[in-house]
């Protein structure tokens, strides 16, 4: 079943220096699966994710032939209707908990805010639900974390708090923008496992945005590779090693490997015909 379908998405910024096209005609569809979007900085992957929630500030503009989520045309919804979708139906986890949690509010108050305001829960009920959410992301002492300020948490804990917060309203689609890039490898593995369980148990759709091709290949079902605002290749994660597009191949080959020969790493040839056309 298709949860989200996007056709010919374009994100344009009209600046003093002229028009900048951050996303140039991206199309994809998503079921209840894990879709990875990979690319280097400036490839438009984050803008693509934010467009789904219509979170692009002016002077940025979103255009699309179609952007449909669960039967609703996201391009035609009013701002009020969009707000009703954001959170309960489509949620987003940002890259860095340091910048995405409110530094002057206790974690518990931030977790309970939505429950109190949106779901009109009483204090005790909201607290119980927030603690359950923290337990769901494997936080061992949720009581302490509830009373902590964000700066008192490690990066991994902060990121789990963010995920817990996004999962409280039980969204159908989770957009995770580099959710593990700020984390250590062992913590990263743990956060990925939590996301994976959630996708499986709740039947959630997941858009996983990352610059890390190997991570995405291991974690997702399908991968879109973006370069300069376009999708240059779409493939099943298992087929990544057989990628056809020179950009995907270049991204894979330029990574050092344990046990490699230590010779010069192949760079990306940005003067090749494929890069010129893009």
């Amino acid at each position: 079943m298709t949860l989200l379908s996007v056709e010919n998405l374009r994100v344009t910024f009209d600046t003093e220096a002229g028009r900048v096209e951050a996303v140039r005609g991206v199309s994809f569809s998503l079921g209840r699966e894990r879709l990875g979007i990979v690319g280097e900085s400036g490839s438009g992957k984050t803008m693509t994710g934010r467009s789904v929630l219509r979170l692009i500030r002016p002077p940025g503009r979103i255009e699309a032939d179609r952007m449909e989520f669960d039967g609703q045309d996201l391009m035609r919804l009013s701002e009020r209707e969009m707000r009703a979708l954001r959170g309960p139906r489509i949620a987003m986890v940002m890259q860095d908990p340091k910048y995405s949690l409110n530094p002057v509010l206790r974690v518990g108050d931030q977790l309970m805010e939505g429950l109190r305001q949106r779901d009109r829960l009483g204090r005790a009920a909201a607290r119980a639900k927030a603690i359950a959410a923290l337990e769901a992301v494997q936080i061992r002492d949720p009581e302490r974390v509830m009373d902590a300020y964000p700066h008192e948490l490690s990066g991994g804990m902060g990121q789990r708090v963010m995920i817990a917060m996004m999962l409280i309203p039980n969204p159908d689609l989770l957009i995770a923008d580099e959710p593990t890039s700020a984390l250590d490898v062992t913590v990263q593995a743990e956060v990925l496992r939590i996301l994976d369980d959630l996708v499986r148990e709740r039947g959630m759709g997941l858009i996983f945005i990352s610059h890390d091709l190997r991570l995405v290949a291991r974690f997702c079902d399908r991968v879109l590779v973006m370069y300069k605002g376009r999708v240059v290749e779409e493939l099943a994660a298992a087929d990544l090693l057989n990628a056809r597009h020179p950009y995907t191949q270049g991204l894979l080959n330029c990574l050092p490997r344990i046990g490699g020969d230590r010779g010069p790493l192949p760079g990306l040839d940005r003067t090749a015909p494929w890069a010129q056309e893009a």
Partner: protein
Amino acid sequence: MALIEIDNLSVTFTAQGRHVRAVEGVSLSVPARESYGLVGESGSGKSTILRAICGLAPVSAGTIRIGGEVLRHDKAFVRRVQMVFQDPYASLHPRHTLDRTLSEPLAIHGLGDADRRVMQALEAVGLPTSFRFRYPHQLSGGQRQRVAIARALMLEPEIVLLDEPTSALDASVQAEVLNLLSRLRDERGLTFLMVSHDLAVIDHMCDRVLVMQHGRAVEELTRDALAGAQMKTDYARSLFEASADRMMG
């Protein structure tokens, strides 16, 4: 005799009556022209060791010797030891042109011929000499890291301390910067002490690696032992297994 000898080093930070032991009893030695890696998670103390060598972190016990001499942070030291920091957006002065950034160490150390040396430095790190009067904000992340490397090499040091030199960069740019570092090391006979959280980067660059956790040395591995998964401690193994997708093949 090793060029860098660290014996039983401890670093303790004190703030508001609390003591944080960032590094505890770490020893290592690096012969000249070897590249030595420090790997571990955030808070393992790997960067603190580099900062202690530079005098940016308080040594509470142990000794650091460079070329057999106990460390003194004088002008002679900075001629021998230089550092490249993680974030090329933060480590260059935003209001200094590349020319000023690169010629300042020359002026401080009374080295003449600044004009030629700056041009040579830009060429050595693969930047066009036309960039000379640009500001950091006019450069990409990879170009900035090239400038940071050029700056570190202005005084022709023997030892370069590298603190996550490529972790802020895209994969293809990382490849270019790692290639640059390898080339400069071979051309100039440099000794690297390099910190990274990425085992594949460490493996690519270093002959030996010290795995650290909670401020302590866990295990030292040669490159072969790392590639062959011959680690003895559980922690080093778990780090290795979490990096399994960084393996060959």
